[in-house]
Structure formats: structure tokens, C-alpha cells
């Protein structure tokens, strides 16, 4: 079997994205010397860690050839869950967080099970469930904000360990765990194979259904993590929590070079995708770009980055083919 190149070792394949990232950083830094200060870099990383975390879960699904539009609503549900467990149910913080992660995994597994057992297209099912889950949030909270979260809990979103915000540490820990799962376990390899060629996967004895349900579970758990960190960061849970984060998560994965048809992409790409989004969002405000132009520029930069990346990869691919010949 052809060995699939992935992970950090394949970072050279992202040289296109890295170059673009360096160029925009230089431009921002030239316009505002405060851009590359420790405080601002930390702010960028803390902001992108939220959609980076859900981007990782979404990445598993996209690699497997699926996607989940419910993550935004799931962030909301899990934010509400963790808040209720701590306030109304008065459970200890660690238990509330654990139960919330389990709830996220359970909702994810439910999504995956319905999709794989009924054959309903993932796009349609998860799109429909988005409103179901959001509706449940409104029913449970009666549309009200939950505040008065315990002080110690807020540390997850606000405190630092050795100068680094806990949110960033969680993001990088998740990146490493995801890398290990994808590259060092049979399950991880199956995600790639089943995503790239489901039929071949089936004949080589992979249980595609099980793999997909597990991917949905992982996505659910990451959404629960993001919901928990967000709740701690904002010190309150609004019923709109996590709104439209599914698009951020998909953007992160796709900008990072994942193919929506499955089988192609890596964890390094997720980090780069998140960095591109975070740097652009922060940098445009740093250089004081007029508000309406920010939207235009953001879209254009993303398109340029991805086209450049595709172009670079195509170049690399042809060279490899020639070599093989």
C-alpha cells in the first residue's frame, strides 16, 4: 500500500500558506509595530484557539469525507450544559466539564449513527439538526443568559500558566493528541483510507460505519471543549453561544488544505488555517483598515492563500510524478 505522507513531517507541502502568512505578518508589522508584540500574539492565539479546537474535530470528519454543520449549536448546547451543571445542579467543576464532554460525544455519536444507518446526506441532516439543537437551547434557557458561573471555572478561559493562557494550552494539547491519533493509530489511518476510497477501505476490512461514528463523536467532544472554554472566557452563556462557528471550523480545515471530498489533509494544515484566519482578523483592526474594506480584504486574502497553496502543491506533485517515472 502506498504510504500516505502526513503530519508535521509534511510541513513543506504547506510552504504556500506559510509564505502568505509571513507576507501578511510583515505588512501588518510595518503598519503597526504593536502587531508582533507578545501581548498581541497571545491575543491572536487565544482567539483562534476556539475555532482551532472545533476545526480539529471538523478535520477528522472532513478527512473521513463527511461534515457536521451542528458544531455551532453543539457549542451552545455544551456551554449551556456546563453552566447548568455548575450552577443549578451545583456539581463540582471537574465533574461538570467531564459530563459536558461526554454529552458532546454522545450528541456527536447520535449524529453519526443517524447519518450512517439511514444514509441521509450529512449536509442535510446536520443542517436540520442545527435548528433542532438551537431550539432546544432556547427551550431549556427560556432564551435567557446564564451568568454567575463559579470564579474558579472562569480560569479555563481567562487565566495563564506561565504567561500562556489556558485556552491556548488546551488548543495545542488537542492538536498533539489529534496528530497522534491520526498518524500513530490504526483508527487514524482508517479515517484517511475510508475518506479517500470507502470501497477500498471496505474490502480491506475497515468498518466504515464505525469509523464515521467515531469521527462524529470526536467532533462532538471538540465542540464541547470549545463551548466550555467560550463559557469560561465570556463568564456567561448566551443562548446564541457558538453561532456560525461551523463555518469558521470548516474554513479553518479547508484553508489548511483539507479536501472536502475526504482523504487529504493534516493536523499541521489545521494550525495554519487557524493562524491565517486569526492573523487576518486581528491584523486588519491593528492597521486601522476601514471597516467595510476589512470584509473585502479578508475574503480576497483567503482566496489568494488557498490558490497559491494549490498552485504550490500541484508543482510539488508533478515533480514527484516525474521522479517516479
Amino acid at each position, binding site marked *: 500500500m502506498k504510504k500516505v505522507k502526513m503530519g508535521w513531517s509534511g510541513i513543506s507541502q504547506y510552504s504556500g500558506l506559510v509564505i502568505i502568512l509571513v507576507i501578511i505578518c510583515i505588512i501588518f508589522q510595518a503598519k503597526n509595530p504593536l502587531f508582533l508584540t507578545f501581548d498581541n500574539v497571545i*491575543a491572536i492565539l487565544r482567539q483562534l484557539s476556539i475555532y482551532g479546537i472545533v476545526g480539529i474535530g471538523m478535520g477528522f470528519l472532513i478527512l473521513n469525507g463527511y461534515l457536521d454543520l451542528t458544531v455551532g449549536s453543539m457549542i451552545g448546547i455544551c456551554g449551556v450544559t456546563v453552566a447548568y451543571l455548575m450552577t443549578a445542579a451545583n456539581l463540582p467543576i471537574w465533574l461538570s466539564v467531564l459530563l459536558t464532554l461526554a454529552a458532546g460525544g454522545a450528541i456527536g455519536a447520535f449524529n453519526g449513527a443517524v447519518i450512517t*444507518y439511514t444514509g441521509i446526506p450529512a449536509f442535510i441532516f446536520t443542517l436540520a439538526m442545527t435548528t433542532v439543537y438551537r431550539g*432546544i437551547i432556547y427551550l431549556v434557557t427560556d432564551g*435567557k*443568559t446564564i451568568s454567575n458561573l463559579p470564579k474558579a471555572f472562569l480560569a479555563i478561559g481567562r487565566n495563564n500558566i506561565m504567561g500562556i493562557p489556558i485556552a491556548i494550552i488546551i488548543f495545542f494539547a488537542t492538536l498533539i493528541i489529534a496528530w497522534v491519533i491520526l498518524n500513530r493509530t490504526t483508527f487514524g489511518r482508517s479515517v484517511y483510507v475510508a475518506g479517500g476510497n470507502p470501497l477500498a477501505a471496505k474490502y480491506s476490512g475497515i468498518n466504515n460505519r464505525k469509523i464515521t461514528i467515531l469521527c462524529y463523536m470526536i467532533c462532538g467532544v471538540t465542540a464541547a471543549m470549545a463551548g466550555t472554554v467560550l463559557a469560561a472566557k*465570556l463568564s456567561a452563556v448566551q443562548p446564541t453561544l457558538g*453561532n456560525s462557528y461551523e463555518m469558521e471550523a470548516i474554513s479553518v480545515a479547508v484553508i489548511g488544505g483539507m479536501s472536502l471530498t475526504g482523504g487529504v489533509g493534516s493536523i499541521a494544515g489545521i494550525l495554519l488555517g487557524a493562524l491565517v484566519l486569526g492573523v487576518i482578523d486581528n491584523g486588519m483592526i491593528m492597521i486601522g483598515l476601514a*471597516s467595510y474594506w476589512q470584509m473585502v480584504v479578508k475574503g480576497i486574502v483567503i482566496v489568494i492563500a488557498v490558490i497559491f497553496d494549490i498552485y504550490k502543491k500541484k508543482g510539488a506533485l508533478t515533480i514527484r510524478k516525474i521522479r517516479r517515472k
Partner: protein
Amino acid sequence: MKKMIGIVLTVICVLSLAACGGKAAESGAGENNEAETVNEAGGEASDSMDETSGDAAGEEEGTFKVGSLYATLSIDFCKGMQEGVNEAAAENGVQIIEGVYDIDANKGSEIIQNFINQKVDAIVMQAIDSEAFAPSVEAAKEAGIVVVAIDGRVNTQVDCWVASDNTEGGILSGDFIGQYLNGEGEVLIITSEPGNVTMVERNNGFHTGLEKYPNIKITEVMDDGQNGVEGYSETVENALNANPNYDVIITGYSDVTNGALAAIEMNIERFGEIKVMGYDADEAMLEKIASGESPLIGTIAQEPKVIGRLGLENAYKVLKGETVEEEVGAEVSLITFENISEYMAQ
């Protein structure tokens, strides 16, 4: 085995749906036993139509059917209006059919079309875009339906428009900050949701209020509001990183206020000196102002419940053939550390 799992899944789905349905009915009954929620065009709505045997019969019995439409129900302000509308409806024996359009004007217009098809007698609606709602409101007027706009203005003839004076609220806020800074300093205004009339009017008010203080430097940063409080907190954090010299951040509604507060609280050692001027008044905000230790130094309080109540009452008056004023204003008030105890006492 496969079949078994299929059956189990189906049962789970049905049960969970049933559970949701039960809850919905329950919460509806709690607030107002006549309220009915319409989320999507069609569906439930047409069912409720069948129950009443047409317009004339309804009017003879003296029960009017009124469609109420809100941008969202996730903000305390909108919930307040909903409460006011439903209370006034219960008192006057008006049947309410409710719609929520999730801050999507297009969806809102579809719900109005739906109201027209159901032959409601009146519509009490919150518009977030004065232009986008005009065509559907005109269609409703042509169908002989009484239309009362609450909160946001609609750029076409309506029977009545009830709103807090947003420009006045903006001016109160700007002027207070001018005084607070003794006419010297730097102010950051977060402009949210461009195109949203209410926000534009408040924003203009901020500038008018600050006009008297030429030595205050004003910077504006926009956020389209897509990511709610979290988005606003990021925008504010980025803006403060770009220029840490701001003295006060002026905000235009509760999500922006809470986002700005979160951004400062996250970086308390760096931005602890920067103050926030709020808009709207939820309980958490009031507590913060009262403590005197929070970055939040004041806010503009509206009376959403009064707005909702006035909206329905005016619609009811028109239905009974009485004349009403075209524009009805609801008061706004400035709340600061100095006067908060009076406000809480009310």
C-alpha cells in the same frame, strides 16, 4: 441486527421529538396560554388558521388575531417586548401568533407573508432593517392588515411606530462620557450591524452627544455581529491591542457591552483602567454598575416591556376604529453609579 438498531433509532427520534413538543407547549402555556409559536413558514401556522372559522366570525366574537414578529428572543430586550405584547394581548383578549426571524430580514418578510395568508387582523413587528421590510409591510397594508412597528422603523406607511428614542439614548450616552472625561481623552465606539437602523441612530447620537467636547478623540471600529458576544470581545481586544490609549469604550447594545467587558476582564492587568459605557440594562450589568468597581460606568436603560405593551395596545385601538398617533416614543434613561439606587428602587 441492523433492523433492530434501525427500530431503536427511530424510537429514540420519536421520543426525543415528543419530549421537545411537550416542553414547547408547557413553556408556551406558562407565558400566555394563547401564544403560539411559528418558526417556519407554513406548518403549524396553517393549522392554527383552520381552527378559527375565518375573519368575520373572529371579529364578531371580539377576538382579534394579531401576528407578533421579533428579530430574536435571545436578547433580554426582545424578550421584554414579547412579555409586554403578550400581557397586553391577554388583557384585551387578543389571540397572538408569534414569529421569530433570527435577525434575518428575508426570513422576517416570509413570516409576514405567512401572517397575511393566515388573514391576521394586525401585525406588531420589530424591524431590524427599515428598507428590507417595506415591501412585505406594504403587502400587509394592501391586504387590509393593521401594522404597528415596534423598536425599529419601517420605511413605509405604518399605522403606528412605537420605539425608544434611540438618537436620544445615543446623545445621553455621548454627553455623559464627555462629562465623565472632563472633555479630554480618547473614545472608542464599536459600531455594530451596519444597516441596522436602531444602531445607526444610536451611533449618530453618540457623535452628537460628544460634539460639545472637541478635545475628545473618537475612533470607530466595526463588527458585523455575526459571532455575538464572543465576536465583539475579540474585536474590542484587537482594537485595544492596536491602541491601548483609549479611556472609554462606547457600546450600542447589550452584546457589545458584554463583549467589551469580557475583553477588559480577560486582560485586566493591561486594560484595567479602560471604562465601558453600556447600552441596555440586564441584571448582571446593573449589579456591575452598582458595585462601583467594574469597568462598566453607566448604561442607557430602555423599557422594552412598555414598548411591546404600547405596540399591542395601539394596534388594538386601530382595530376598534380609534385613531392613534403615528409615532409613540418610549422613554430612555441614563443609569450611572450616582443614580442606580433610584433606578433599582422603581
